[in-house]
């Protein structure tokens, strides 16, 4: 395919994300610094060891104790250089850290030993992820069992998928192709089999792919079903504030005041916790009567609920449905 390099000894993985070049640049900078110190030290060792090799048995070397000037120099220079490395590392990290607002969101659930993906339009995949090129993609990840780690070397990025919480990872693929996808956190028996491929496609191909894999339901639709029928959330959470629980429309992204005086932002993690551990964060003005749904909903159902509540963001739209 397009992917594999034909080098006998490969040195670099494919470069296929918007920040891959930054990581590579940092890598070259670090190699340059390492080469600089290695050459200096190794050359000095060879030079001294040869020039000052023992001339006569049990002759003593010169009386030298040290030099404050030298000590200061070789403390200061490595220190300053290490600070530039720190800065470089911090900048590259910062660029990857906060996912952009307009990113397309894909849910990822890791489980021993497979990766499950769900697209916003409902398509599900296992160990394969199809994404459009030049679009920002945000992965919202969790795990059903142990810690896994989603790693795409060609994108120069990875992040842990941790059970019991959501973590995020974002990238923008820049080059169509097929790239390795690994689990990088040891997760038991088949860890080295928890691998797959990321297919980066032109927008058009991606749309064709989506069309060829129509799904019965988007996550939000599945969530609505759970919310209204299966789990009975709607009996307390109604369209108005009249119900026993707060109305959830417009909740996502809002500041929520809790009874313990804290204010938190209602993100995916917050909604997830509200469902699994409602007693942990009681909304101001309400009674702690919401039952926990821990053990009754799967990770996928949680994803659906979260997506549904997010989709209520636009109140009128959800009313008209």
């Amino acid at each position, binding site marked *: 395919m397009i992917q594999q390099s034909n080098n006998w000894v490969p040195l670099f993985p494919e470069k296929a994300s918007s920040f891959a070049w930054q990581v590579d640049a940092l890598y070259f900078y670090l190699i340059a610094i390492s080469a600089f110190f290695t050459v200096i030290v190794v050359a000095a*060792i060879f030079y001294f060891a040869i020039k000052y*090799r023992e001339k006569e048995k049990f002759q003593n070397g010169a009386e030298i104790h040290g030099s404050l000037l030298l000590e200061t120099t070789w403390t200061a220079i490595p220190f300053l250089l290490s600070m530039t490395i720190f800065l470089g590392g911090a900048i590259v990290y910062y660029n990857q850290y906060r996912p952009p607002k307009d990113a397309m969101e894909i849910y990822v659930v890791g489980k021993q030993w497979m990766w499950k993906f769900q697209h916003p339009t409902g398509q599900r995949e296992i160990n394969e992820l199809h994404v459009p090129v030049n679009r920002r993609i945000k992965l919202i990840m969790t795990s059903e069992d142990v810690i896994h780690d989603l790693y795409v070397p060609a994108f120069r990025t990875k992040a842990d998928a941790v059970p019991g919480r959501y973590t995020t990872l974002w990238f923008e693929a820049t080059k169509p192709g097929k790239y390795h996808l690994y689990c990088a956190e040891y997760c038991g028996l088949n860890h080295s089999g928890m691998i797959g491929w990321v297919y980066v496609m032109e927008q058009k191909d991606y749309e064709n792919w989506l069309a060829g894999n129509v799904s019965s339901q988007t996550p939000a639709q599945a969530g609505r079903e759970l919310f209204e029928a299966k789990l009975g959330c709607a009996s307390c959470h109604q369209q108005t504030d009249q119900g026993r629980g707060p109305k959830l429309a417009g909740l996502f992204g809002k500041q929520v005041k809790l009874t313990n005086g804290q204010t938190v932002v209602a993100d995916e993690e917050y909604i997830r916790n509200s469902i699994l551990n409602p007693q942990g964060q009681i909304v101001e003005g309400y009674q702690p009567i919401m039952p926990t749904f821990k053990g009754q909903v799967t990770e996928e159902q949680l994803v659906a609920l979260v997506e549904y509540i997010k989709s209520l963001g636009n109140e009128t739209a959800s009313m008209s449905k």
Partner: protein
Amino acid sequence: MEKVEVRAEQTKPNYLNNGYSVWSWLFTKDHKRIAIMYLISISVIFLIGGIYAAGIRLELLTPQSDLFETGTYNKVFTHHGIIMVFLFLIPAIPAVLGNFLIPIMIGARDLAFPRINLLSLYIYWLGSAIILWALLQGGVDTGWTFYTPYSTTFSNTYVVATGLGIFINGFSSILTGLNFIVTIHTMRAPGMTWFRLPLFVWAHYATSLVMILGTPVVAITILLVALERIARIGIFDPTIGGDPILFQHLFWFYSHPAVYIMILPSMGVISELISNFSRKRIFGYEFIAFSSIAIAVFGFLVWGHHMFVSGQSIYAGLVFSILTMIVAVPSAIKVFNWTATLYKGQVSYDTPMLYALGFIGLFLIGGLTGLFLGAMGMNVHLTDTYFVVAHFHYVMVGGTVLGYLGGLHYWWPKMTGKLYSEFWGKISAMLVFIGFNLTFFPQFILGYMGMPRRYAAYPPELQVLNIFSTAGASVLGVGLLLPVIYLVHSLVWGKKAPDNPWLLPGLEWRTSSPPPTENFEQTPVVTWEAYDFSDENGLDVEKVKKELATV
């Protein structure tokens, strides 16, 4: 006449001919005998760990998982890690070389608490026996890092037993550390001021601090994992309200400093070797001494650099990253001072010195690649790949093992009273250096290519580099087996070692080889600085030279 003298020398009482029964060893309070028993135990352990390493490299010769079942492979690398880290690297230099030499180097009769010293050996045996038993029963497959919730909830292997062994072993470290600190504080010979201490002793002082402060944390952490497995108390397992990331904090809070438990003593050995084989005072004594302490202190503040991708906040990450950069500086200072020590020296290339020079090169690479991993943006790509594996082997094998071997060769004549073959010594030092680089350098590239660690199978395009690595491992294996042969050979057939085979000023060279049970016939009085070659400070140079001429 000369012959008579030699015979008289041989029958001189020393710690080895002071009783031959098994009991005289098992119930000894002599730090030297305890060190020898550690040496034997640790060598056996190293051999076992090495066999597992061979298993790993053989499996990785081909891209498929074919030599072992995947589950077996997981156990093989787990056992390799646990054995090498907890049973070899942590105790090796302190328990063998430190135990033997610290009292002699400071002019003391023994450690401050000889019985506790023996107790720590028994604890080490007990802990190791439990671990080996667990491995034989079926073993563990969690990786030596025991990450939760895999270790608490999912692994069906002997996690509790192994954890118990590690927990018990921790007390051996703690007691040894305590013993060293008290000894160094209270038992220095008259005139042996703090700034006359050999740097080997300073390095062990710093190591002991880390042992005492850090080991209890990992002991408790492993205990908590066991409790979680047995009683489901809900600390690490998220399904019962625990936090799996908490484990990582606790584990690395110890395990990063543990890296320094492994490397600091080795740095101490290297300071001795570089200075003595240049026949010259070490460059910047105070800077090397205090850099050890700085490493020990800052080493406790960088654990989060293992967690840049586990959802740690960016602010915590920034602090850990900058501190990681700072902790690299004292190591750099040491490297520069060692190099500068060679300047205008009288450098000889005996086996120990070859190890020391090899150490500088490998440790340099190990340290510099640590900067790659400490830079956050770089770490995201490299963590949990073979880059990390290569990095810590450069530090742990290139650093600790080379230092250990250098020190073992250097003090071998003192410890055993026998001279080993210089020829074979040099050959093996070179094989180790070459084999090591061939094994681990390709792994840096594999890591950048994205090969995850702990994989039994890998994409075929990475095979060539893995073949290099396995080939290198065979060379390394030969290089490491040779010393076993020629050192043991020297015990029986080796020439008798003179008291001071290199005409060096340190206290350990002023007593006989092997030393008497009480170390010195009379308590020495120290009037010279460490590594002071300027005048011979009471050494009878002519006598030593004459003695050397006879071997």
